[in-house]
């Protein structure tokens, strides 16, 4: 083990010159860097040395480049600053975006959309074996849909797209679908995670599986189980095949906490509110059925 460590340590030079192999080796070394302060300092200094190598070959770019860069900068929005650098997963918790909880009508729409994608993926997959597994999957999804406590949540993904989650706390299952997601290169995948509430146990991060490849901006629904009340759903981009713990900054954080179990009164008030709104509008009929 110590030998292996020293081996890793010897890679600081190659790393600083971008001369590591992409993939496993780079990942292993980056992980090591997070723990090894000496290595980080060494890499930082080596990068300053590399800077002098760059100045050695400095060359004046064509003058048009300046115009183009300035013009592009003038119409490019800058990224907002990161509030906490290198935050760990547990530090996401306070920064959760507001979740948009959809009313029942939207749930019905989602159900139709989910069913349509399931049918589509069945049509697209040729073999009968796939048909069977798709059928099993669509039955499982139907079971989540049919659960009396089924509801949906959705969240915007950094970099574009929306992830919609259909979940049943009772069945402890959820169905995840992405729309308008950016297609990833073949060696990358979207991975979803469930993170327990921070106060309970050790804020466990569990992989909830990989999203299937994006086809035409859509991913077919993915069933995940083991949902615990108070969970947060997160999504990261990981190397193909997925990882056991997230290695990149999440591009989606979505609270799945059930409002009903936490505060029954609030829920009732919400429902009343909704009903009031609908009464005011006086356009919707039949969607206000109370359970």
């Amino acid at each position, binding site marked *: 083990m110590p030998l292996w460590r020293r*081996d890793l340590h*010897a*890679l*600081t*030079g*190659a790393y*600083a*010159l*971008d*001369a*590591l*192999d*992409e993939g496993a080796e780079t990942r292993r070394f980056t992980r090591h860097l997070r723990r090894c302060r000496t290595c980080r300092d060494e890499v*930082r*200094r*080596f*990068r*300053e*040395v*590399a*800077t*002098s*190598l*760059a*100045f*050695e*070959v*400095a*060359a*004046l*770019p*064509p003058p048009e*480049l*300046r115009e*183009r*860069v*300035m013009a*592009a*900068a*003038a119409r*490019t*929005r*800058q*990224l*907002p*600053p*990161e509030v906490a*650098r290198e935050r760990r997963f547990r530090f996401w918790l306070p920064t959760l975006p507001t979740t948009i909880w959809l009313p029942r009508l939207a749930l019905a729409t989602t159900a139709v959309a989910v069913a349509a994608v399931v049918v589509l993926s069945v049509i697209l997959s040729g073999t009968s074996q796939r048909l069977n597994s798709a059928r099993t999957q669509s039955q499982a999804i139907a079971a989540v849909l049919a659960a009396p406590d089924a509801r949906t949540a959705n969240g915007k993904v950094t970099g574009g797209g929306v992830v919609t989650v259909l979940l049943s706390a009772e069945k402890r299952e959820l169905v995840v679908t992405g729309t308008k997601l950016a297609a990833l290169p073949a060696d990358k995948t979207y991975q979803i995670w469930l993170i327990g509430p921070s106060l309970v146990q050790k804020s466990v991060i569990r992989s909830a599986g990989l999203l299937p490849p994006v086809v035409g901006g859509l991913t077919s629904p993915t069933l995940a189980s083991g949902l615990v009340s108070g969970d947060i759903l997160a999504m990261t981009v990981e190397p193909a095949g997925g990882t056991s713990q997230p290695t990149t900054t999440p591009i989606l954080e979505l609270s799945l906490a059930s409002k009903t179990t936490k505060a029954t009164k609030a829920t009732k008030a919400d429902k009343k509110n909704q009903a009031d709104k609908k009464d005011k509008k006086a356009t919707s009929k039949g969607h206000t059925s109370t359970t």
Partner: protein
Amino acid sequence: MDQTDPDTPGLAPVPPPAPGERDPDQLLRLVAVGDQQAFEHLYRQLSPPVYGVIRRVLRDPAQSEEVAQEVLLEVWRTATRFDPALGSATAWVLTIAHRRAVDRVRAEVAAAGREQKTDWASSGTEDDVADLVLTSLDRERVQRCVGGLTDAQRESITLAYYSGYTYRQVSALVGATLSAIKSRIRDGLISMRDCLGVS
């Protein structure tokens, strides 16, 4: 071993800013709050090494220009994320530039499956080196430090940095073991670091 003089700037070869001109670290801080004029100044100071290193790796002028534009725009876009604790602004910008150039090379090699040329020996043929960037004194110093490397170290560093090879590719090319290449690169960088007085 690390006789660091607190008064010595971290980056020996970077010229001191002209009177009234801010250095890249100060400029980048202004860029982060959306100062376009600061970005122009930063461009003037750093576009030669950015373009130069990209061109050294990619060779093709048109492609280099394209990548340089991407890099400089990324500097503008992500200036808000720059963390001075992790190094100088100059090193940050040039790390992005080198990374992008290398990414481009590797993506192309992967796509075309073609062999890379081994033209490392023809180093130092840039005709349009911007002397305005490095004062002759700084240049002398860098060259002296490069000259202080063993031939094997210089070869490995040149192949990795200027040709954009991975250390595995360097190893295959020069017929030395992987661990030999790793040490050559690291020892060479340590020697240069001490010679340049990087703090």
